């Protein structure tokens, strides 16, 4: 059981909007968008990152592909440290990690034909031999006929654009694909098509997926393991089945219970997480979820909970777990 990707105690900082104002008001001059995050992803598996928007999921993903500098901690890929590497040292690694961005239409350049969009990754890595055949085979991999090579992005339906996005991601047969909200805004039927396609490609090529989403119904069916993030920290991590069977952190229980079922007689009791997500500039004391938690004790206000480890690498940080 060797990990393909290991993230160890990773912290990512951004300068706060106004440093002068920050100094005057005594607020920190930076925010920690990702704070002391550790997790490992096995080859060929799917790992889901879930959490509200602003919880640091995209920042974490961008740091893994070297698009955001890290403040402290390490990222290892295939046993090699990749955080803090320079551009040249990163090149061979980049080939093995592909990123699928949110908003497929926005990430396909409108003036390029599908042909050129799919040729791009090969050109970047100087693998231009036999390009037409490679592109035809990519289109076939994602279930599109060869003549789609001649189309422009605006001639694609939403589902087709997503397929092209997937084709581009698998072009160089990466070991890891990072997919940021791959099904956000999609209708259930097309969402199913996309997830089935990703699963089929995973089986065919042994690709691992790091999937970022806030759709928990999706997570349950596609992810082997998952982590729940809150304010840049992992508050609970474990096998997906274990977390769905028995979520422990009170934020996880609130999140899972808010997952509305399409059933008017559904008896699930919704555990409300009152109020708003706090600002990263003013992290709450103690357990950072306590202002929204209905199960807080006195200790939750004052002391940050330590991590409790259960079987199968299920861990969580909560003073009063479910």
């Amino acid at each position: 059981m060797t990990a393909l990707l290991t993230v160890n105690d990773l912290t990512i900082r951004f300068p706060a909007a106004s440093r002068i104002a920050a100094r005057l008001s005594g607020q920190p001059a930076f925010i920690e968008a990702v704070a002391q995050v550790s997790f490992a992803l096995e080859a060929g598996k799917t790992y889901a990152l879930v959490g509200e928007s602003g919880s640091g999921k995209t920042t974490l993903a961008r740091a893994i592909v070297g698009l955001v500098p890290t403040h402290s901690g390490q990222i290892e890929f295939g046993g090699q440290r990749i955080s803090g590497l320079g551009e040249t040292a990163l090149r061979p690694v980049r080939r093995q990690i592909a990123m699928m961005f949110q908003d497929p239409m926005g990430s396909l350049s409108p003036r390029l034909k599908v042909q050129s969009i799919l040729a791009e990754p090969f050109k970047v890595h100087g693998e231009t031999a036999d390009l037409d055949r490679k592109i035809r085979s990519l289109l076939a991999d994602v279930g599109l006929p060869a003549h789609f090579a001649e189309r422009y992005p605006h001639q694609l339906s939403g589902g087709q654009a997503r397929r092209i996005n997937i084709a581009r991601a698998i072009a160089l047969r990466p070991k890891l694909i990072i997919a940021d909200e791959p099904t956000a805004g999609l209708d259930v039927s097309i969402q199913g098509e996309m997830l089935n396609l990703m699963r089929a490609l995973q089986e065919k090529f042994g690709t691992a997926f790091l999937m970022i989403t806030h759709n928990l119904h999706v997570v349950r069916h596609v992810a082997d393991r998952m982590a729940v993030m809150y304010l840049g920290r992992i508050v609970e991590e474990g096998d997906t089945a274990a977390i769905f069977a028995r979520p422990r952190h009170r934020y996880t229980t609130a999140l899972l219970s808010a997952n509305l079922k399409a059933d008017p007689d559904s008896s699930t009791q919704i555990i409300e997480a009152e109020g708003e997500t706090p600002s990263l500039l003013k992290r709450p004391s103690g357990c950072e979820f306590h202002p929204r938690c209905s199960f807080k004790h006195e200790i939750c206000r004052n002391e940050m909970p330590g991590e409790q480890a259960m079987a199968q690498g299920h861990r969580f940080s909560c003073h009063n777990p479910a």
Partner: protein
Amino acid sequence: MALLDIDGLSVAFRTRRGELQALRNVSLSVEKGEIIGIIGESGCGKSTLINSIIGLLPANVSAVSGSIRFEDENIVGMTEAGLRRLRGERITTIFQDPMTALNPVLSIGTQMTAIQYRRPESLAVKRRRAIDFLERVRMPDAARRLDQYPHQFSGGMRQRICIAMALLTEPDLLIADEPTTALDATLEVQVIRLLRELQRDIGCSVMFVSHHLGAVADLCERVAIMYAGEVVEQGTVRDIFRDPRHPYTRKLLECDPGRLTEMQDTLPTIPGEVPDLVHIPEGCIFRSRCPDEFARCGERPSPETVGPGHRAACHKARELGTP
């Protein structure tokens, strides 16, 4: 009597490829004080339906027929002055992106007092009402935050400000076009709870448009299912989610991963593509993707009543009942 009664509404747009028939023969009514959900995949005509109701169809609309009765007036063919009297006052809207409704350079207080321009009251009274509504959408510290600008609020808070603004005039009908699509699960639940609570207080009708089946099942009393420009089925929330009679509704529900009790490697999908609305095929609109297709589907089905208020446009609507 229904508050809103849409009868045989058809809307077409002029496009380079020819006339696109975005809505065809849509009939739907909304009772006073009712929350109705409109479900359908993107492109099925949800926004066109809303734009027809608020009289804001895009410029390239080429034909509108049928009627939209709001109390005793017909919105189809109404003058701009008449529409302005309804819109923003008796019929209000909230959208997926709160920033489409908020002006970024004006404080929310200024915006919330401006929309009360028809009321012959002092500014102080209008501000107090604005604060009251912000408190009702659970904005902490509402009086102080009234003078802040939209960018100073989080996405979830902005959507709540929009809800407060949409309810400030105590409308008869609130139309919400995918108001929770951009929100996370916990915030979505908060917004839905809030809508229900305020709807009860104010007593308005709500038209809640979404492709999130769970949200509709939680909030709505009655549901209409749209496919490719037609309402293919409508009924109570229990009719639709427990006893769906149109094959499209049945397929759509099957595809919802939230309804799968067992973990599944392959998720269900609806094979095939939505028909081209420029070249509407003959017969039933769902025919080419339907698992239950048979000879009669070449004939366009009209809505079949299968129970009180439960109608499905399918020749097999009666047979497809759950045993």
